[in-house]
């Protein structure tokens, strides 16, 4: 399923924050994990993740660092910062409230899954 680009763009940052909060990851790895966990529901153009990562690094929510990757090749790994964790927490709460509000409006109750079923 193709999602509206405006909808996905606003969620890229929280998704990246969530993933790098689990462990430091490099750009390609992030895309791979997103695809795996969403069953390829998100079809990101791979190159587009880098501007986002750089922007987030600029705002100091993540920190990039060159390290040796699993194949021996150097990779730029990104890790979440303290500021990033705080932001992730805020975003998660915000999304939760937003999803609840949208579900309530669209389906009359708070369970999207039930409505879709």
């Amino acid at each position, binding site marked *: 399923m193709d999602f509206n680009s405006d909808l996905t763009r606003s969620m890229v940052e929280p998704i990246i924050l969530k993933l790098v909060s689990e462990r430091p990851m*490099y750009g*390609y790895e992030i895309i*791979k994990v997103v695809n795996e966990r969403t069953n390829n529901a998100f079809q990101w*153009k791979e190159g587009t993740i*880098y*501007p986002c990562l750089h922007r987030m690094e600029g705002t100091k929510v993540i920190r990039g660092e060159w390290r040796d990757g699993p*194949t021996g090749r*150097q*990779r730029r790994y990104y890790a979440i910062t303290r500021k990033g964790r705080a932001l992730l927490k805020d975003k998660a709460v915000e999304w939760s409230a937003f999803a609840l509000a949208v579900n309530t409006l669209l389906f009359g109750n708070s369970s999207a899954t039930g409505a879709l079923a």
Partner: protein
Amino acid sequence: MENTPGGESLPREQIEELLDNATAGLKDDPELQLDVRSELMSHLEAAEAELRDAGVAEDKLSEEALKKFGSPVELADDLVKANRARMKLRALARLTARAVMVPLAVLTAVWVYYNSSFLGFEFFEDSRGISYIYGSDNYFDSQLSEEELLIMHGDKTRKKWHEQQRAIWEAEPENKVYYGNYISNLFTSGIGEREGLTREFLETEYYRGMELDPDNARYHYLLANLWLDEACNYKDETDYSEKEPQAVYTLEILDQELFDQAVAEILKGIAKPQYKNYVYEMAKLRLQMLPPSRTLDELAAKIDAMAWITLPDLSRARQQFNIIFAYAKQLAEAGRKEEACKYLEIWYPFATQLNRDSFTLVEVLVASAICKKAEEEIPPIYIAMAMPERAEKARDQAHRLASTVTAWREENKAVRGTIGEYLRREGSLLTAYMLPAIINDFDKEDLTPSRELEQTVLERTMFSCLLALFMGAMVASILIALRWRFSSRAVSPMLLLPTPPEFIKILGLGVILPVAVFWFYTRVSGLAGREFSVGYLGLRFLLEMILLSLTILCLTGNLAASRLRSRCRDLQIPVPEPGRIKQRVLWILLGASWLSCFFLREKETSMQVFIITGILLGVFFLVFYLPDLLLHALLGRRVFTLKLYSSWTFNPILMSFIVIIASISLWPVVGWRNGFRQYEMGVYLYDLAIVLTFIIIMVLLTMIITSLVSRYLLCKKHKQLVGQRDYASYYGTAARSLIPIFAGAVILLSLLVTPYLRNREARLLAQDPIFTDIEEEVSVSNPEAETTRELREGINRIAAEIEVEKQGGPASP
């Protein structure tokens, strides 16, 4: 990028094009552009590897990977937008490093060097050290007003010294002190100084003195001395080489009338209430204009000014009384008893007059010497005239007046032989030079401030040298970066700035940690031998300072290089393997040298260790380490491999060649420097420091250049052993990126260490009980002032007792 694993199957041109297009907007920040490029490249390689694992055909790999990657044009826009703020910040940081840090480092280094103590160099010139401080009486000139400058030096536009001094009096014609100072300077020897000083001229000047200062005996004595020079011929033929010399002299009167006039002037002089040469008053006036000493250089300049105070009357006074004694003897032999008795009594009022006015030890000693001579020579004359009571009385008075100094000399005799050696070992150079003739009893603790003061000055000087080393490293880095700036063989050198935490780590571990450890070692540990003088263990202290300088420079350089190496790897810039063996040898040598220092407590051993360590470290640094590093950086290649080392570096022919060329190059410099020493210019000390610095630089440069040339020739001869990889980009970038780090080290050292050392110097100077500011005492040192005061007062007390006896009072015990 050819060494990147897994990149072979992607069409290179296509990838390069994509990466160029994607990062085109970042070209103003080459480091960021390379960084992003590397990141994108690693992404494409990972994508390709995964596609291969998924069974995609090799010829489709690149196409698929690029398709998944997306449009480079859109990406380029997004990358610029995402990095805009960061690029601005980074541009500002680079501008700060280039336009602020580097000039600031140069300015602070110049400031520190300008304010550094050249006395530090002097310590190693000669263990007497301070004896070479000449002619620095203009040290404070910049701090004085026009009026003060006139009083300090006189009118320097005038040709002769005494004319310059006359100008001070001319500005205030009623001032007796200024006139006395002018008269003292009439006796200055120098080219052309004595021209025009005719008898008539001097008579006029002395008569003016009598008119201006009618209670002062001085001008009568000077006039008498002037006339005696013409009126008689006195020859002292005593053999002073004998253990107890017997006075042998002849007096031939050439002009009896003039001689009688001279003697009459002496009689007028002894009738005056006082004798004053005003040297003390003038010296005090001048020293009070000078600011309090905050550095040893300033104190030394003041001591120098004191040391140059002339006491022209003293030699004249002794000569005058030799003549008077000889004349009285002649009169006695001629049976003219009454006249003889009159002249035999002159010594007493003169000696007491001179003693009352004295403020230096030498003046008191001359006054006492006159008494001693009177004790030996007058009684036999009275006895020859059959006047034994008078003989006994004169002997008694003279003996009692001389007894104060005699007792002091006896008291000093016990320590005089050993005190000099002791002070040289545990005192300071200043105390060892100034005190052995004066001191008879002192508190050991009193020597500490002066000793530590000189150690601090040495540290300050060596820190200036360390800054110079860093500045040299900066210049070398600039030259290497420029070497590759316009080269087609390398990417233009980038400025890779460390992040603030990295910067703090490099300077913290490279600069602050060694300085802190050194501080603990020298101030707290008790292992640093700081209870010994700079003149005694100076070579050890110098070696430690050299080791500290090398440790700081190498540690900072290595930490920075290690960080740059890693960063260049991130950016896919080919990096040579570090020379691990040389690094290990370096740290082993430095560590062993430090260890060898710790327990040195003997001057001779200190010298041996200094020479051995100096040769080892010097040869290693100047023949191997530095030339290798420079050659690699300038050629952009790994030039010397281990194989080449083992085949050629230890070749005795090459080593002999280097040593011979270095020695030949140094010969004229040493010769010139020796010639310089014999030529005493005005500010000798500074000239000497400049020459020494020049020699050190010449030694370093000669060894480096000789090694460089010989190794370059060797390298050309053995091309097959020279590394083939091109590391020009790395060396250029590393050199350029090291500049702000060295600049940071210079600023940190200047702001951290120099103020601490200057404050410590000022504090120790204030604590020093031996050389406190001499403006209060008008003396070279407190012990001298104290000794002079005690002796003078002792003689005055006895003179007062004699006066009471003369007026019929009680006899002295």
